[in-house]
């Protein structure tokens, strides 16, 4: 069981991710609605893994990833993206993201990503 921080600006998406992640037997320790909040919560909660949406207000997912990596180079971050964000995803991978999942999410895919990253 891993402690997971979910980041997405849509409450809807957070709810869904949380559901899936919880059903997979992990614990969602926090939900952040933008990159800035995610970075702050990361430092506070020290989760085992962060899911990070890419397109968000305040601070986007890639920048947030970079911030988190500054604080903790070993941080495990999985990017959540939609179709058509190839460039951002690649940038995130370069910046140290462990994996990415593409919306719409499936439980299988999330499971795969989580178990490979953890």
């Amino acid at each position, binding site marked *: 069981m891993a402690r997971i921080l979910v980041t997405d600006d849509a409450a*809807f998406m957070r709810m869904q991710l949380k559901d899936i992640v919880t059903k997979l037997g992990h614990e969602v320790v926090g939900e952040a609605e933008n990159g800035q909040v995610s970075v702050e919560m990361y430092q506070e909660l020290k989760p085992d893994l962060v899911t990070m949406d890419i*397109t968000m207000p305040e601070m*986007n997912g890639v*920048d947030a990833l970079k911030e988190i990596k500054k604080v903790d180079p070993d941080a495990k971050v999985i990017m959540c993206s939609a179709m058509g964000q*190839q460039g*951002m995803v690649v*940038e995130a991978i370069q910046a140290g993201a462990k994996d990415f999942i593409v*919306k*719409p999410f499936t439980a299988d895919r999330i499971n795969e990503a989580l178990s490979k990253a953890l």
Partner: protein
Amino acid sequence: MDTNDYIEIFLDESNEHLQAVNDQLLKLEKQSDDLSIVDEIFRSAHTLKGMAATMGYEDIASLTHNMENVLDKIRNSSLHVTTEVIDVTFTAVEALEEMVESIAGGNTGKKDVTDLIARLEAIENGKQPEESKEPVAAKEALESLDLDEYQLTVLDQAKEQGFEAYQMEVVLDEGCILKAARAYMVVEAVEQHGEIIKTSPTVEELEAGEVDRFSLIVLTKSPAADVKQSVHKVSEVESADISLYVAVKEEAAPATEEIAATTEEAQTEQKEETQKAVTSKTIRVNLERIDDLMNLFEEVVIDRSRLEDLASEIKNDALQETVEHMSRVSEDMQSLILTMRMVPVEQVFNRFPRMVRGLAKDLNKNLDLDIIGAETELDRTVIDEIGDPLVHLIRNSIDHGIESPEERKKAGKAEKGSLTLRAFHSGNHVFIEMEDDGAGINREKVAAKAIQNGVLTEAQLEKLSDQEVNELILASGFSTAETVSDISGRGVGLDVVKSKIESLGGKLSIESTQGKGSKFSIQLPLTLSILSTLLVDVSEEIYAIPLSSIIETLMLEEKEIMDAHGQRVIDFRGNIIPVVSLRKVFDVEESTTKDSSIQPIVVVKKGNKLTGILVDSFIGQKEVVLKSLGAYLKDVFAISGATILGDGRVALILDPNALVK
């Protein structure tokens, strides 16, 4: 997974995002070079896409996806904002709204969007290579790779230094969507072990996406199994076969690029501008819950008045004190619950800019819409109901009020008309005003029409003030537009607007100066469910008259009530006003104990007309909770609802407007 649980929040958020897109699009139209606006729109479209795809609303997802492509191009400055782009995007947003609405109505949210998508794609300028490239060279990737001379030399040298060359064939999952990014991850994983000297298809093709299997040659000192395992750590990799590379031919093949160099481009991605309104902490509460809370609280209010009655009977100081305290606290509670139900009128207003824009285009008018006081708060129930009447009034203004640019020029006005929508609080009311600087109401036209329709005779007309003539346009079946246009003037006229507003307890009035413009003002109550009333007695029955319409109460002697033209009238401060007897209106039985000759009268107003209402006695002022009479007793004459009094008796609440002639 069952997505039904999410539908509500999905709808909420979708609507928010659609609204944001709307607002930003309008902004973008004015400042087409501000890319931060494009970013905002992009983000909303993007979130929408993600949610819709998750919920399985394919049409919304594909439409937003195409919108996104266009926006992305604008964002990267490879496409410019033109009216066409905005128009098509607006049409797309409209389609999205329709679909979301259909979902809200319990339907599938399906819609044929192929045409729109085609238009978006056309704008996108000959399709985006990333999305449309044919799956490249899948077959040859399986064959053994050829190396050119230079690569073979590198290979030989590496072998001398103890490196092994492995050929790897990677197949990605069928469902994998961002194949290029995935391929990049595979390449990165392999590069942990050594150097990749060749990939097939080429790196460029890999990057273009849509390649689900590819081969590569890597020089490494790690055992094959380790390399393979690293690749399997990457998600969405179906298989990764690795074998020692055996050079087959020595023919020249196209040179490969250094993989690392290819990723530079990705880093040029723009940083997102972050400028969003500071959000206060909120939670979402279902409106039903607040309504339930309000209902419960109303019960408390009823009990409170019962307690007040009891306490005053028992005359126990401690009890009375407690009850008084409870009254004060519950008053605070009431205002708190009421504010919870309050939402900014913005919710209604913010759909207008786009509507006005569309109408102006359709009707060839040129105008600006100014919205003032969008943050003014109104009860949710009122908000829900006020939209349609306002739409009607705005249409009316643009269609009949604002003149065409040519006419305006002739009249010596600025070519651009202006329409101002203003909302503000005043006392216990909220005012919404809509002012245009158009042609105003044409007295002659209205008068002629009224006579033609038999509403008035010529003689009556002479006596009417301009104000009264203006209000004629609110009469049913009245339309002065010469031609019935698509927009307004279909006969379902302003009378519908007027009665809607009146049913909300509001008032509609018109001020207009011919040639200068008109102003429609709507006065609305802050809330609908708790009223301050005057309780009056008619025989054994109690009626509640809303304080908002009462001007004064009088005690007159019976003989002061006169007869004029078969109508009972009184002299009220120098004006002759009609009186009606509640007893007669509601056919209440005469009470046996009729003592004095003093007659209590409640003077009520509607607009600037007054009427006296004869009652038996005044009981006093009381806050009452308005309860509807239920579905079986709809549209009872002059009754707007009922309430339960402290002693458990039911009082009917009067609608004084119906009694004013």
